[in-house]
């Protein structure tokens, strides 16, 4: 019996050791990027004496980053270098262009607009598939489902030609529109909306509700948790997009990934500035992650559902 408990203790010790080791290996690079952003380059790129204690060079590194002429990382008020073309939405035009957006704001703006519009589109399409009968419903649904297996980021070549044709090169719409009708989003919404009872919709209809009211007064409120999980999938998808923005956007409109790539690609690599940029781009999402852990986890799991 004592042998048994001793074995159990060793086992528990080993398990905890393994988990702790994993946690440390996970956290050290993240901590290191933060530390490096607060040090001078010579202090953290030293094979003899690297330090794990933050220094006080963050703001001077940040100023050096902001002073670069090939990348605008955080925006500022001042002389405009570029305008957001809102197309027909001229009302918003002057207001938005008071602020000269940098890569951080561009990324947040693009990912935010994308997430909201895509949630709307996917939930509408999912509602149609879940709660209505119409001709060719099954073929259309399976056609959309079939594209789930395609890595849609790979369609950059025809998309690039298409965008130059319709005059959307160097526009944020070019990196928002192509993936708005997200197959995974449509599939998830359809699966979840099937659980809305028909009787509920039917009685609302008899109360005189229009079909659109059924959608936004009944379907959307009952889908809150699915929408939250989906919004995280969509936001991170757009936040991490690199290839197509790299192809389609010009200097001054860069999103975070393209801007950081611009820093790395220069002849002389300024690691201190790159680390500031990386810190600034990682921290907002970490904060979101810590607040929305549950939705993150259900978002990851939602992405892995199979039927």
């Amino acid at each position, binding site marked *: 019996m004592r042998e048994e408990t001793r074995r159990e203790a060793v086992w528990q010790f080993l398990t905890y050791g393994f988990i702790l080791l994993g946690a440390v290996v996970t956290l050290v690079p993240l901590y290191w990027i933060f530390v490096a952003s607060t040090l001078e380059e010579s202090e953290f790129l*030293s094979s003899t004496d690297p330090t794990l204690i933050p220094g006080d060079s963050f703001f001077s590194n940040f100023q050096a980053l902001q002073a670069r002429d090939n990348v605008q990382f955080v925006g500022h008020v001042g002389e405009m270098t570029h305008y957001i073309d809102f197309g027909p939405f001229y009302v918003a035009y002057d207001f938005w262009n008071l602020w000269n957006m940098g890569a951080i704001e561009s990324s947040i703006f693009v990912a935010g607009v994308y997430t909201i519009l895509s949630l709307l589109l996917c939930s509408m399409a999912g509602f149609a598939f879940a709660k209505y009968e119409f001709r060719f419903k099954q073929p259309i649904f399976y056609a959309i489902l079939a594209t789930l297996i395609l890595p849609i980021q790979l369609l950059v*070549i025809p998309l690039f030609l298409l965008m130059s044709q319709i005059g959307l090169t160097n526009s944020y719409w070019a990196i928002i529109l192509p993936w708005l009708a997200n197959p995974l989003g449509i599939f998830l919404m359809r699966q979840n909306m099937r659980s809305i009872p028909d009787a509920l919709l039917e009685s609302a209809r008899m109360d005189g509700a229009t079909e659109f009211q059924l959608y936004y007064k009944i379907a959307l409120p009952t889908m809150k948790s699915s929408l939250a999980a989906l919004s995280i999938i969509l936001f991170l998808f757009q936040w991490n997009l690199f290839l197509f923005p790299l192809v389609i956007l010009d200097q001054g409109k860069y999103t975070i990934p393209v801007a950081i790539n611009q820093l790395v690609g220069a002849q002389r690599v300024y690691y201190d500035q790159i680390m500031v940029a*990386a810190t600034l781009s990682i921290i907002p999402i970490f904060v979101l992650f810590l607040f929305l852990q549950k939705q993150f986890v259900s978002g*990851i799991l939602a992405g892995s559902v199979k039927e």
Partner: protein
Amino acid sequence: MATRDSLSGPDPSVRDRLRFARQSVGERMPTPGEGIVGYVFLLPAFLLFGVFLAFPIVYTFYLSFFRFEGVGDETLLWIDTGFFSYRLTSIADLSFVGLDNYVRMFTDTLFHQAMFNTTFILVVQVPLMVALALLFAVALDASFVKLRGVFRTVLALPVSANLVAYSTVFLLMMQDAGLINYVLTSLGLPAIPWLTSSFWSRMTIVGAVTWRWTGYNMIILLAGLQNIPQQLYEAAEIDGANRIEKFRYVTVPQLRPVLLFVFVTSTIGTFKLFSEPVIINGGGAPLDSTITIVQYIYQTAFIDFRLGYASALTYVLIAIVSVLSAVQLNVGGESDA
């Protein structure tokens, strides 16, 4: 509640009786116009889907039989009224080359190098990461582990890091004078040329991808573990199974569909590798030993502007990924039956 009132019909009693009648019949009565409403809800998604997904899929295939000469300027349609003018031009200026683009792949050594690199990373990285993810999932699933939620969050944290930003961390840590080599040398081990030797630069990418995605896959596996019926473990215990045997004969077989899913999605993810080699290895350095397929497609298309050949390469990649996904669906289907 003004809206609620405006929704109500003129005579509540008639409405209630109608509702009761329908509910007691227990069937859904057809609503006028329902056939069209479905299309209306679907229309925006369907239009975008057609223009930005279906069309590119078909057009990439079409392009792969042509040589790209330039962006099109031939006018197809020109509407010019007093109010607005609209000019539709052809998408691209092309010349037909038949199967040349596909034939050329057989002699393209850089393409072979890219395939080799991707496969190498795949063969090393995917099993390593899935094994690690499984071990972490099983460890966290153990009944005595406290603070499970905290550890799960910590291990999954890298997923939220921007793809390009996290690559820069590895770019920094893997320098000759970086953190990793400092740890190695202070342990008395030799420093490793992480970014300058062709073998080790691939291993750097393996390490970076593993660091980022292990926690993500662990979450999926952990959910799978929690679906395994507890009775199976109890039955195995009665049969005298120890920990390793329970893992071998209960956990792994029960987890098979989830493991397969993780394997296949990770494999597809490896085929799509782009930001890591671009950032960490500056686009394939040293000597193209880390260039990946997607990166090669990018260079062919947008630096050399050989869009036709790049389309053919894309289609080969799409074919590979589709076959892998089909395998996944089939195997997954089998295990459900």
